[in-house]
């Protein structure tokens, strides 16, 4: 795609700018839709209707109205806050989660940046989010925010280990860190997807990755950094207006990013499940987004069903359950690849 654009436009800088903005065209409508979907899904799980008025059909315009409301709000910075860090934090958080979209392959013809270490880049750049969260918690000068920030730092750092190990199992099969290359290797029918390779090791790695990714994006049952009933709202307690909206946007962008990695690495990414049926660059986008949204739905489903773990139990799950099993996957797949 970048070659095509380079033919049309002579300036390199302009081409890169356009490519950088394209994921935003997806992220923002997606976030608006996902917030609405979350409200509808939760409502129907709880015997309610959810938003029904704004926009007519099932309140589809509710989140747009919410964004307009947030835009109009006064931008409050607490007097005792560290103003520079306080203002910077939401941008760092959003930057961290948005940067991951650069290496996510939406289709066989489109990837923001076709670097050959795409997966490594995504894992590295999404760790930047922690810095933003710590900044937000510290700069707010609020004890609850600080607790939330400390919890999220500990949580995200801990859960990166099982996440990375689970992904490593797939990397060993693919022999590449390039996400496009990994997707191409899974083409054909759905039994070519990595999730069905080297059974049960990769399947186990998929489960580990999914559970750990829930913790990475602070979703229930691992939502303790923003545990509403304990920490009021965690690190974003003091935020309002568009700064709060940026945290929200980053959370939903992150949800999609981890779902996208799960579908790329385990469920064939942009490949059609049925061989050549409905395949191609454009259908690829459809399959990719559908798989991503499927995971988003599962994340919502879990959120509205399960209670929340306690901090020490969360650490227990990471270090004593997920990490050892992730090692089992790595060793299992490694030996299989080596001997088989």
């Amino acid at each position, binding site marked *: 795609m970048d070659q095509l654009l380079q033919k049309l436009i002579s300036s390199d800088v302009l081409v890169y700018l356009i490519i950088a903005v394209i994921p935003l065209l997806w992220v923002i409508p997606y976030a608006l839709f996902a917030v609405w979907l979350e409200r509808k899904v939760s409502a129907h799980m*709880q015997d309610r209707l959810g938003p029904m008025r704004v926009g007519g059909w099932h309140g589809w315009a509710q989140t747009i109205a919410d964004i307009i409301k947030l835009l109009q709000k006064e931008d409050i910075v607490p007097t005792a806050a560290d103003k520079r860090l306080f203002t910077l934090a939401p941008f760092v958080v959003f930057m961290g989660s948005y940067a991951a979209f650069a290496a996510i392959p939406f289709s066989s013809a489109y990837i923001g940046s076709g670097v050959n270490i795409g997966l490594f880049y995504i894992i590295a750049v999404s760790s930047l989010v922690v810095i933003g969260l710590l900044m937000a918690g510290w700069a707010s000068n609020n004890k609850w925010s600080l607790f939330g920030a400390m919890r999220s730092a500990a949580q995200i750092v801990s859960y990166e280990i099982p996440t990375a190990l689970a992904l490593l199992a797939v990397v060993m099969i693919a022999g590449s860190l390039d996400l496009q290359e990994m997707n191409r290797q899974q083409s054909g029918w759905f039994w070519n997807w990595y999730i069905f390779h080297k059974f049960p090791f990769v399947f186990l790695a998929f489960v580990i990755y999914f559970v750990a990714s829930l913790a990475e994006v602070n979703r229930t*049952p691992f939502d303790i950094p923003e*545990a*509403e009933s304990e920490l*009021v709202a965690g690190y974003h307690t003091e935020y309002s207006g568009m700064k709060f909206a940026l945290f929200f946007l980053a959370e939903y962008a992150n949800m999609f990013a981890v779902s996208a990695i799960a579908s790329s690495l385990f469920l064939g990414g942009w490949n059609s499940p049925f061989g050549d049926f409905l395949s191609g660059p454009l259908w690829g986008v459809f399959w990719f987004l559908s798989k991503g949204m499927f995971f988003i739905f599962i994340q919502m489903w879990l959120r*509205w069903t399960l209670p*929340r773990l306690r901090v020490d139990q969360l650490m227990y799950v990471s270090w004593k359950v997920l990490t050892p099993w992730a090692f089992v996957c790595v060793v299992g797949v490694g030996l299989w690849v080596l001997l088989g």
Partner: protein
Amino acid sequence: MIETAARGTTVTASPTTSSGRALRTEEMVLNMGPQHPSTHGVLRLELVVDGEIIVDVIPHIGYLHRCFEKHAEHMTNYQQVIPYCDRMDYVASMSMDFGYALAVEKLLGIRVPERVEYIRIIMAEFQRIASHLIALGTYGLDVGAFTPFLFCFRDRERILDLFEMTCGARLLYNYMWVGGLSHDLPPGFVEKAQDFCQYFKPKIKELNDLLSYNEIFIKRTANVGVLPADVAINFGCSGPMLRGSGVNWDLRRNEPYAVYDRFDFEVQVGRGEVGTVGDCWDRYIVRVREMEQSLRIIEQAIAQLPEGDVHSAIPKRIRPPVGEVYFRTETPRGELGYYIVSDGSTTPYRVKARSPAFCNLSVIAEISRGAMIADMVAIAGSIDIVLGEVDR
């Protein structure tokens, strides 16, 4: 070293550097409330924390103090106190009125018609279910499960509908008067009440499947906030708090008032099924099982419901003889006692309410030392306080 009572493990209070030297750490004072999502009202808990571990808890109350006792002395007659009783425990107003009406009736020495006795018990038990539903639903919310909360409110709504068709009010009823009731049961009430009993039984199972036996929920509540029976008795805990600790004590059975001695029901106690006796889960499950028992009482009361006039025994003018009375009843939160002193006039000389939630709350520091902040929320929720009643 701080012994974390909840898990029986030890946590070092002073972290050390790599060279083994102790780092100087400070305890932090954290204000939980009065505006906090899980203090269930305007309770302020002053937490002294060492990281996530709680060193001490100091509850501060009084934000909702409305001078109930002083108000009661300044009404023009005894009946006028009842709306103020309503506002004490606004989640279980019927039970509050019930205790007051019984106390004044004992002072006056009057007997109410049989029909009144039965209707009062039906209402009090419906109120117990409604109150426990709030306790259980918000408890789910405290540990992070949102859906059970709305399921509980959905079912409570049906009970409020029943109350509404009886006396027109949904929260503060002013229904149980001294010597009778404000309204008789409306036509169709009995059928609707029976419908509710049939509807509600499967919903208890649904709640158990969704929350009570959920692995994460058990992990969060079992062995947390263990209240041993002797501590519970020493602090004057009552109701599900006391029974959760394995003490078989229910005023409805041990000191039957009204016509509770005519019904067949079991007193539920905590048995430590998933953890220790007296932990948060035990207190929770006692409430779930009490709802089943309340349904049993309601069904029996409806089957035996006699005919009669609910207004016949209401005195025209209440002027009790000089004297005093103490009467205690079992509300959803525990033992509610009214101590009323009469100087022979038409207003009480003194009314003192012994509030169950106040006594239950007093034990909070005892059972939460060494727990974590997340446990603190679970413990406070399991006590099931209503600040209107704590502060009066």
